[in-house]
């Protein structure tokens, strides 16, 4: 037995310490937010007593209700469309001999490495240039635009590991090309499609900046509403709203794990 700590053990305990500190760092602010949503005080200061008051206020607030509806509507529609586009494009790019492959692949990667704010600016100017009134329609277009690259890449990565001999096996057993696709290939792509859809959904409900540039007056999503409220300083309901949104996130995490389990 050695008495002194070996360097390897030292590194390991150091890493453990840093890991624990990071977890605390990641969760403390969220925890404080949740606790303070029950705080009976007008401003976000110290603890003044327990209350459900702000949850009641929240449920009565019609602005929040509309913002929530808008957020979900945009998220569902943009998820649907960007996932369909993702499936089609990923399938098209599967063909390694495809003449347009390199160019299109590049076009898909570029939006991922450019700051979001630039996409917001460029879309805002586009809608101004063609004189489209900003609102739900323009927000939807914007959300699909930033989701496509992600859905394509997620589905592509699933297709990459696809065993092509399964297609040959199906054909060998008498399946025509359409049957091969619907009975073998598509079911096996499903986990990738679900992962892509979940990612698109989260990206959509989370987006602030691009929505900020492409939504007009009267069409707020939740992040836009929250930012406006913080800016106006009327923040009493934000804690409780945030707590609900965090709960929703956790719910999504659980659901996505379930879905993945059911599918494969």
């Amino acid at each position, binding site marked *: 037995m050695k008495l002194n700590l070996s360097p390897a053990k030292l590194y390991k305990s150091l890493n453990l310490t840093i890991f624990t500190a990071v977890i605390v760092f990641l969760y403390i602010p969220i925890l404080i937010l949740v606790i303070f949503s029950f705080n009976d005080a007008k401003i976000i200061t110290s603890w003044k007593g327990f209350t459900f008051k702000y949850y009641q206020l929240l449920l009565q607030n019609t602005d929040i209700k509309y913002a929530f509806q808008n957020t979900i509507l945009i998220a569902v529609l943009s998820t649907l469309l960007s996932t369909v586009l993702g499936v089609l494009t990923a399938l098209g790019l599967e063909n390694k001999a495809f003449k347009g492959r390199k160019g299109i692949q590049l076009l898909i990667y570029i939006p991922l490495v450019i700051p979001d704010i630039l996409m917001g600016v460029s879309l805002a100017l586009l809608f101004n240039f063609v004189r489209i009134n900003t609102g739900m329609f323009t927000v939807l277009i914007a959300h699909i635009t930033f989701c496509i690259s992600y859905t394509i890449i997620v589905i592509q990565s699933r297709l990459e590991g696809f065993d092509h*001999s399964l297609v040959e096996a199906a*054909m*060998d*057993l008498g399946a025509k090309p359409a049957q091969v696709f619907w*009975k073998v290939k598509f079911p096996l792509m499903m986990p990738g499609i679900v992962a892509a859809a979940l990612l698109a959904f989260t990206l959509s409900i989370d987006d602030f900046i691009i929505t900020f540039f492409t939504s007009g007056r009267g069409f707020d999503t939740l992040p836009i509403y929250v930012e406006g409220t913080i800016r106006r300083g009327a923040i009493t309901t934000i804690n409780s709203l945030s707590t609900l949104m965090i709960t929703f996130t956790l719910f999504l995490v659980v659901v996505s794990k379930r879905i993945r389990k059911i599918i494969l």
Partner: protein
Amino acid sequence: MSDIRLENLSKDFGSFRAVENVNLEIKSGELFSFLGPSGCGKTTLLRMLAGFEIPNTGKIQIGNKDITQLPAYRRQVNTIFQNYSLFPHMSVFDNVAFPLKIRKQPASTIKSSVLEMLSLVKMEDQHAKYPDQLSGGQKQRVAIARALINKPEVLLLDEPLAALDLKLRQHMLIELMNIHDLVGITFIYVTHDQGEAMSISDRVAVMNQGKIIQSGPPDDIYERPSSIFSAYFIGETNLISGTVSQVHDDYIELKCQIDKDEFLELDSTMHFTPLPGKELTMSLRPEKIAISRSKPRTQDDINFVRGTIEDILYLGTHTQYIVRVGKLRIRVFSQHKRVYFDEKALDWEEPVWLFWHDSDTWLIDEVASDTSPSGSDLEIASPYSRAVKKLGNQRI
């Protein structure tokens, strides 16, 4: 009748000629093997039969039907893939039912035929499992059931045992033969393992570099190889090159250089009549050579050679000796039978006599280019060292 006929079949991939001018007939119900090293074109040939590749030239016929350009899903041919290719999202039952569901058969028919098929491969109690819950051997069985349920005319097997361990491989080989006997359809088997091909097949085609080198029953190829390649690839052999010095009625005399000015005079029966002065190669299987410390009685039809033991390998069923004769290295297998055996075991560097019957050799009308016995890194009694290198050091 559904004999398979391949006519002038060739297939190129870019500038690489994978299959070259193959002509072959496979009889209905036969268990036929394509045997050759990797890259010899056997898998490409199989894929053309399955319909995954379209040949550049030539024709594939089953019975009277030309199927050369028929898509895979219209052929009465099914395949067992090397990695089984079971559908991971379907249960064993659904995998086997797949070909029937595709053809929209009624559910009751599907159920009874699937269960029948699964019982043929002894998997009926596993029908609810998924492929990732099965062992390699079980996957293999499901793949067989799935491929046979359509009652194809031909079953193609692409190295079906390569992924299994040795014991299971031997077991599945016997089971495959039983299934073949039961269903009675043509099996076409592709392998690089000569043991598998020899034990299972009615006939074997030995392939190399896209061409069929020789085809026939396994014992025919083993005993009467038509080329150095088939002699070498099937089993193990000593290849000794030499010049015909005399031609008699039923045998020839071969003069073989074994060192700078050392020659051996060997007799061999013949299956063709060469002219004196012709250069030939003689194949001499190691198990046909007797080895002894004492000189045997002289007989007309026995060849004697004096050599020195260079290496001894005890292999359980037999012992392998490597005997140095001049610059030749001759491999000898000796069975452990007390009656034939010297009383005291042979030892390293011991001078010995090798002798064999002159009808136990086989003449091949071919000479390898690098036979020179003065070569510094001489391979063991094999002038075909280039082939050896190509085959990737499969020898000891």
